[in-house]
């Protein structure tokens, strides 16, 4: 490399390094605002503000889903296998909703405390499984919390 090329190489490297460092620090400063949802354990330890809207994700607790007498409101618990939070939702649940499925619920807490969800989204995970193994995988997912005691990732 000629001296002028070396100089330009240094300048370009410095720009990349500078932008990288600046981005790193801004990301570190805004870390929590990049999170899409909170887990039941985070709510239990941090508490909640009744005025704020929360995005809360967890696994649908086996055997917790039931329908209220009005016929359109469902109530169920979501869990990270350590803490549970009860969700109430009026409306049509996503097709993937079932026991053991990770879901994201969006809504506000009431005093019980229970999250009154305005939206329920299914959180599809990174696993792809052929159809014939469906029953086995779904059973394993529904019983996920039996095998672990700590909080699980989803």
């Amino acid at each position, binding site marked *: 490399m000629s001296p002028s*090329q070396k100089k*330009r*190489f240094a300048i*370009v490297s410095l*720009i*990349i390094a500078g*932008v*990288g460092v600046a*981005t790193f620090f801004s*990301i570190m400063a805004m*870390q929590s605002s*990049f*999170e*899409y*949802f909170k887990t039941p354990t985070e709510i239990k330890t941090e508490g909640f503000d009744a005025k704020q809207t929360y995005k809360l*994700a967890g696994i649908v607790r086996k055997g917790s889903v039931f329908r209220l007498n009005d016929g359109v409101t469902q109530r169920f618990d979501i869990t990270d296998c350590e803490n549970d939070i009860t969700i109430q939702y009026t409306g049509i649940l*996503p*097709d*993937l909703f079932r026991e053991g499925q990770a879901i*994201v619920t969006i809504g506000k807490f009431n005093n019980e405390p229970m999250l009154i969800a305005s*939206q*329920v*989204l*299914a*959180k*599809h*995970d*990174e*696993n*792809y*499984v*052929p*159809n*014939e*193994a*469906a029953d086995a*995988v*779904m059973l394993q997912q529904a019983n996920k919390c039996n095998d672990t005691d700590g909080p699980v990732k989803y």
Partner: protein
Amino acid sequence: MNPITIIWNFLSNTYHRLGSPREFYTISRYTTPVFGALFLVLSLIGTYFGLFVAPADYQQGDSFRILFVHVPVAWMSLFVYVVMATAGAIGLIWRMKMAFVVTICSAPIGAAFTALALMTGSIWGKPIWGTYWVWDARLTSELILLFLYFGIMAVYYAFEDRKTAEKATALLSVVGVVIVPIIHYSVEWWSSLHQGVTVFAEGGPKMPPEMLLPLAFMAFGFMFFYGYALFLSMQNKVLDNERKSGWVRALVNNKEQQS
């Protein structure tokens, strides 16, 4: 001479020949159709195996098959950016004409890949997640990438002088490369609605081989499509950039005599 030296000399020779607009034009006349043919063959095989041979997913049924387009184009949206920024850096440091051409011609192709990734993901999201769009880290950073591509294209056309335009475009693409690791790691660093890594997951792909194989065909197919589209666009750009030089004039005159 040992084989490594021969290969190295061949590669270095090709690299330097491609650095000359005229040589590039000659070489690309032969390689471009090859890329196009490889794209067609690989993607047709991938489409057949993806639509008819791969089994349906246990919970998504047949709608999972959109991943055979979504995943390759999303990978390409990042791959094209890395190529574009690397070419930009080479152009800035070594003042190589052809490197700038690579950067400028890659931007619209990368933007198209990014837009396709966002659209296919959105179409898939409605039946699976229950929503077309959420502002989670992965989706938002990919959207920023789309606007970055648009910005790079806009910067090039904002300058009257081509040399200034080329340098400004290259600089913006180099600066923007910081988005690539953010998009890639967004699903690991933060909680998101978008799922985590499947194919390059720790401990191997979380997908059976009969789904992985068509995905691989599609991924390589789209890579050749990039090569094909890039070289076509570069041929055009080279002719436009060099329109005052002797060889382009001779080329045009020959074409006129033939017709």
